[in-house]
């Protein structure tokens, strides 16, 4: 067993401890590429898309869009080549699940890509790997090379006559390149700035061709669905959010790491049972349930099933499943400083509300943290977020506004204490 994570495994990660599994031989030994053989050999593209729709797999990149539906948006006819982009630009703070899927399960992902390519009759896939992910990129490239050598990819995939090429490209370190059209721009060698829609990628994607963008984990589920069927897949998770996902838990927990669990697993179960709870006799203050762009939940609201239909009731979302736990020493204003700084730094700067709003939020929060804020500043903070959300080209401005809204919703007292004391009242909190 070469690897200590994930601590809890499921169908995606059960063989990740096996050092042979990342190789083609090791993957095949566990039944690898049989699902692709089944799809390409005995299913029509439409049958694959129908299967995906029936299975109800939701995209695992953060937005949770139904994968089968997304695939069905690709034009069936036309002389333009169709492309796939695999989004491996994992850069949501608190999220580190795709990394292990790339390092330990590259073939599983590639098999999912090949099945997707057949379903959408795509001739090429671009795997866009986060720039900082040098080792994961090397793992994927090795797997691609093995596939070409074995005839799984290329001019005659698995001997079926279907042609599909896979190209790996690496990003240069911008968070926004994880947004699907920002990714496409970057892929084309341009500045990573999301595109206005319409046109949507299924019509005008990479290099102007119809393109579908899916996350690493999304593709990784696909071979399992093809091999074992929609009913089997729906045996995991909730009715509306089927399947497992890999939760990444970080922050003030005894056992930070990855846990593959069915969607709908309760947040308190993940934090206290799987991740070992908060160490040093401290208590939980708040938990961000789905990566930094998702609104925080206070300690009293951890009894929530981790699926969008339940999280939405608490005004937050599953996002990428990156769970960040903060204990009772944490100053939520400081935490907001970190969050707003990140979004200020990473905003691409196209849309007015995002470019100016992210900076304003950070300045306001920083001033409150310094003890120089007023009660009115707290009101302004809330108002600014309301003028940012839902108004921009991409969801980045939402991602910058929502966490601040969550902080104000549940930890307004922290902000007010700063105003009252004219300094930060949490001396034990982390240093900025």
């Amino acid at each position, binding site marked *: 067993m070469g690897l200590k994570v994930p601590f809890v495994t499921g169908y995606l990660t059960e063989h990740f401890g096996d050092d042979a599994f990342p190789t083609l031989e090791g993957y095949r030994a566990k039944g690898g590429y049989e699902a692709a053989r089944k799809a390409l050999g005995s299913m029509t593209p439409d049958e694959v898309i129908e299967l995906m729709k029936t299975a109800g797999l939701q995209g695992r990149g953060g937005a949770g869009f139904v994968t089968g539906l997304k695939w069905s948006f690709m034009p069936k006819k036309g002389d333009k080549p169709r492309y796939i982009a695999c989004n491996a630009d994992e850069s949501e703070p608190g999220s580190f699940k795709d990394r292990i899927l790339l390092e330990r399960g590259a073939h599983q992902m590639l098999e999912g890509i090949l099945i997707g390519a057949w379903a959408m009759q795509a001739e090429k896939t671009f795997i866009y790997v986060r720039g900082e992910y040098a080792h994961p990129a090397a793992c994927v490239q090795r797997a691609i090379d093995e596939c070409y050598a074995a005839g799984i990819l290329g001019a005659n995939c698995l001997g079926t006559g279907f042609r599909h090429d896979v190209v790996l490209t690496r990003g240069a370190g*911008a968070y926004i390149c994880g947004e699907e059209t920002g990714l496409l721009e970057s892929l084309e060698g341009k500045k990573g700035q999301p595109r206005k829609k*319409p046109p949507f990628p299924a019509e005008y994607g990479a290099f102007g061709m119809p393109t579908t963008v899916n996350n690493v984990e999304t593709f990784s589920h696909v071979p399992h669905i093809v091999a074992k069927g929609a009913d089997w897949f729906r045996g995991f998770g909730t009715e509306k959010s089927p399947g497992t996902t890999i939760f990444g838990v970080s922050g003030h927990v005894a056992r930070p790491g990855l846990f593959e669990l069915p969607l709908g697993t309760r947040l308190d179960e993940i934090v206290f049972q799987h991740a070992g709870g908060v160490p040093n006799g401290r208590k939980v203050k708040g938990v961000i349930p789905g990566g930094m762009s998702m609104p925080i939940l206070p300690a009293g609201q951890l009894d929530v099933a981790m699926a969008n239909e339940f999280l939405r009731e608490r005004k937050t979302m599953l996002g990428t499943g990156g769970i960040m736990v903060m204990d009772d020493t944490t100053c939520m204003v400081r935490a907001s400083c970190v969050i707003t700084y990140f979004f200020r730094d990473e905003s691409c*700067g196209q849309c*007015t509300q995002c470019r*100016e709003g992210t900076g*304003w939020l950070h300045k306001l929060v920083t001033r409150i943290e310094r003890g120089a804020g007023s009660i009115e500043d707290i009101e302004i903070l809330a108002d600014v977020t309301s003028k940012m959300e839902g108004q921009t080209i991409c969801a980045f401005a939402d991602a910058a506004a929502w966490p601040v809204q969550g902080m104000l919703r549940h930890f307004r007292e922290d902000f007010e204490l700063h105003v009252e004391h004219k300094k930060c009242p949490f001396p034990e909190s982390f240093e900025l």
Partner: protein
Amino acid sequence: MAKLTIDGVEYEVKDGRTILQALDDLGLLMNGVDVPHYCWHPKLTIDGSCRLCQVEVEGFPKLQIGCNTPVKDGMVVHTKSERVKHAREGVMEFLLLNHPLDCPICDQAGECKLQDYAFEYGVKHARTEEPRRALKKNVDLGPTIKFDQERCILCRRCVRFCREVPKTGELAVFNRGDHSVIETVPGMQLDNPYSMNVADICPVGALTTKDFRFKIRVWFLEEAPGICTGCSNGCNVYLGVANNKVYRYVPRRNDSVNDTWICDVGRMTYEEIGAPDRLKLPAVRSDSGVLEAVPFAKAIDAAAARLRSLVERKGAGVLAAVASAHASNEDLLVLARFLDAYGIRHSGVTVRRGDSDDLLVKAEKAANAEGARTLGFEEAGPLAKQIAGGGIDGLIVLGHDLLDPAYLGGERTLAKLDTVIVLDTHVSALERVAHVILPVRHAAEKDATYVNHAGRVQRSWPVVEPSFEAYADGEVISRLGAALGLPGFDGKFDVREVSRSLGAAAAAFRGIDLESVGEQGIPLAGKG
């Protein structure tokens, strides 16, 4: 066609247009239906980034940007709802967050869309005490444009303009987020034949032309319609007029002529109107060979006397007239009548030629070469040869393009002529050989029509009055005709009446005259 309902009013719009494009097509944008916008420009690609043009579209949960939302048949749009108002207030407040408060010394003040929209759609007070961004001021982007980075609202119109219109791409957005700035690409200057248009399309005071900045507060300017006379394209302009002086040209939109652009060379031709080298005084060469300023009437009489004496000695066959492509149709029609009445057989029109491009700049460097041709004036090349060959003794010459290398290449060959009568707007070497000089008006000083390269008849209006005595060429020729006692010439020149008779002189003008041309011009018959 699609049905589009905006604020309860139904419109028929072309298919395949976005909401703002449809409003623009209908002529209603910011002119009946107000959807404020910064990044969108009718002649540039859609950017969709300023987010000011958000409107409520029924069936969409979120507000939609008018610039990029395609109209669908039956679409219902609201531009005045509370949500729209809230969104606009947000955008305006965000844009003003870091904008310097230097309106009193900003040259854009008075024609600034940030001022206008902040007044109209913004919140009424500032809520930020954070320091504003400090960026570069007074940056030289190139030979024509100054840039104030702090005032820039990053609408990126200038960036798209350089990429899409002159296709030179000198400008780009550098960095990201709230440290985004516009700069020239390293190693490049903003230097292209259309560079000054970026100042027109810049909604704020970030880009200003070196030529116009700090000359006058714009609220003192009257923006009068007219045309550029720098070449045969006839780009439509507004002449910025104050104190009986033209301070600038800015392009006036005409989708059949120049869209919303003008070339830098043409834009600067406004300088010719009040130029120090305007021909200001009528003059007559004395017996001692010196030009002496005389009253206008005396100069006309002197011209008539010289012509009469020459014709008495050698007949009208030794006379020639050189028409100018700078002269208007009305001027040229009077000249043609004069030639007929006086029996002058030798004539032609000079057209100076130069560089052209496939955007706006045309090779013929005058406004009315096509009009002259339509009225029967032939190219003056053969006539110039005849003059150089000594076959002509008396010459009436409009303008000084005859001195161009394509014709005489200088005034020398004219020195031996018995009589040279010059009608011109500006001083030239013709003064050295002229016997009579008669100052005439610039297009900006008279009612007149011109025909552009594509056969579109356009007009000028008198927007300034010369500070010296000068008349339209047509009027000067009318007076000369009367002084000569020519039939049909009573010395009066009614430009409207002359204009109305253009159709009788050349069929292509039928139904076209000063009154019917309007601000957008109309094509000659058969050129539509």
